[in-house]
């Protein structure tokens, strides 16, 4: 209580200091939440790529995926160490390919159960059912949770993917990763969609059922994806992109590192600004209370008591600022997520860890900033302090 009163006594200055730290903490919360989401996506991707190899021509991540022939699948299947090679077709949902924040909506087609049970990245079904062998020639789809919300789809209804109508048979549970924004269809339907989007001149030259965009390769138990990759490279040559889990991690690990750096930068900046501002506030408050400190020392307050008083007050400034910063930051992430949800752009994931870190960080910052003024105050001579006007 007394503490709050002491803070209230210097309203303007405390308010400015608290605002300064709160802005830093708010930035920390917002960017931290963004990093959480990003890392969840990358983590999901990393898990997806473990223990398998994905072969394509060109790269999905640099844009410009080119089709390859179904005959490539047979070639790959014959390589020693390959357990299963199964073809798939992926494309962006949007035909215009407009850039959007985060992960784009995707359509993926493959042969139901084409992995022969080797896939380890399983996604739970929230409603309806998975695709099965009987769906091979139907226009049916299972939607990721974000995409389902974006398309306002429900099981049994129809959705338009590119320009064709599909019946929704299932919706996946949220994974917080890329599949949330995907529509999963049978291979033939995806091939049909892909060819439909080619320029008319090319359409006549290709047979829909002959083209694929990716081949997923599962190695035989005991064969490492890296060994298999070398063999596939020898077979397929330079035009093919052959990606293992390690390659994926190497590629996106640097992404994640940049994000962490940005976050650390913001943290350091808020540390500097908030810390200096708190030191200033506390130093001025100590100067203002010189006489009071003299009185307390004279009637028997130890140096440690005086130090503690100032450090605690300064930590309280940090704590209050942290709580305000967290509240604003949380409100912002929820607002942005709500605004983005209809278009499937859920960019923030405010975890308990981030929230707690922000609060602890600002409180500790406040306490540390109090050290200098605290030591100054406790070092004053009580008699001179008493005389101070």
């Amino acid at each position, binding site marked *: 209580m007394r503490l709050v009163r002491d803070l209230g006594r210097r309203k303007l200055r405390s308010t400015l200091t608290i605002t300064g730290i709160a802005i830093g903490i708010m930035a920390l919360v917002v960017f931290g939440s963004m990093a959480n989401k990003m890392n969840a996506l990358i983590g999901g991707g990393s898990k997806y790529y473990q223990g398998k190899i994905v072969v394509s021509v060109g790269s999905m991540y640099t844009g410009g995926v080119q089709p390859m022939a179904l005959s490539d699948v047979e070639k790959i299947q014959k390589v020693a160490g390959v357990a299963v090679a199964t073809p798939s077709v992926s494309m962006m949902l949007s035909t215009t390919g407009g850039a959007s924040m985060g992960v784009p909506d995707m359509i993926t087609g493959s042969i139901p159960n084409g992995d022969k049970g080797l896939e380890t990245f399983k996604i739970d079904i929230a409603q309806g059912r998975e695709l099965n062998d009987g769906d091979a020639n139907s226009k049916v789809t299972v939607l990721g949770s974000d995409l389902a919300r974006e398309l306002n789809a429900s099981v049994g209804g129809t959705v338009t993917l590119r320009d064709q109508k599909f019946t929704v048979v299932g919706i996946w549970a949220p994974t917080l990763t890329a599949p949330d924004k995907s529509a999963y269809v049978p291979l033939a339907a995806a091939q049909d969609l892909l060819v439909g989007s080619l320029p008319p001149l090319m359409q006549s030259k290709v047979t829909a059922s002959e083209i694929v965009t990716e081949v997923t390769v599962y190695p035989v138990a005991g064969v490492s994806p890296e060994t298999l990759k070398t063999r596939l490279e020898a077979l397929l040559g330079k035009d093919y992109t052959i990606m293992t889990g390690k390659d994926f991690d190497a590629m996106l690990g640097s992404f994640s590192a940049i994000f962490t750096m940005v976050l650390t930068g913001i943290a350091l900046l808020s540390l500097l600004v908030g810390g200096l501002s708190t030191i200033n506030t506390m130093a001025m408050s100590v100067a203002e209370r010189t006489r009071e400190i003299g*009185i*307390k*020392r004279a009637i*028997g*307050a130890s*140096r440690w008591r005086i130090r503690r008083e100032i450090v605690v007050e300064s930590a309280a400034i940090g704590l209050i600022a942290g709580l305000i910063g967290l509240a604003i930051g949380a409100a912002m992430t929820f607002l942005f997520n709500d605004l983005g949800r209809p278009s499937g752009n859920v960019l923030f994931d405010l975890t308990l860890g981030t929230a707690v870190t922000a609060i602890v960080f600002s409180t500790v910052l406040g306490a540390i900033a109090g050290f200098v003024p605290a030591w100054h105050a406790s070092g004053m001579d009580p*008699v001179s302090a*008493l005389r101070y006007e």
Partner: protein
Amino acid sequence: MTILEGRNLRKTYRLSKRSTVAALKGVDIDIENGEMVAIMGPSGSGKSTLMHILGMLHAPDPNHGPAPELRLGGEDVAALSDTARTRIRARRMGFVFQDFNLVPTLTAIENVALACDYAGVKGKAARAAALEALGLVGLADRAGHKPSELSGGEQQRVAIARALVNKPEIILADEPTGNLDSERSAEVLALLRQFNREHGQTVVLVTHDAEVGAACDRIVRMRDGRIRDDGRRPAEPVMAPQLTPVPA
């Protein structure tokens, strides 16, 4: 019994590299247990400086002369650490200042309880003791008031309550009535006198007021950094053995 015993007390303030002020130039002083002593003297004669040394706010200068001695209840306290001196101030001494020196943000009872807290008595016990002390100075009904809501005389009575809440052995008061009119002044003096009489607390006070001085047991007069008169009755002249002729 002598509760405070000072020998060779000196204090020199350094104003700049070259100039110094010798505020106390070698003072010997004895304060008896249960005494109420006034220290008087012209402005600048070193009264406050002596009070600060007796009250353990400052240590006497150890150099440039015979070693200073300061004993509190017989125990040597001349060269204690800051921590040890702080502890003595908290538990065994009470201070009253000319300009009251209450903490402006705290209420009367909180100001008094603060002294308990520093002496190691906390929470409910501290509040109870504080309320009792306020009662003794007749301000129990003002416990919740801030200093700014109290008159000067009332503030000084709160300060007295704060000085005696821990039942210290010694109360040191530097011009406690200096800022009060004669009526309030008499009240404050009466309070100090009462605690001295009823609880046997030793009181040392600095004053410029001859009436206040006259109400004390003894007046120590200072001038120019020295004690000119310690107010003790001159020692009985030693009787020379009288050689009275044996009557024949």
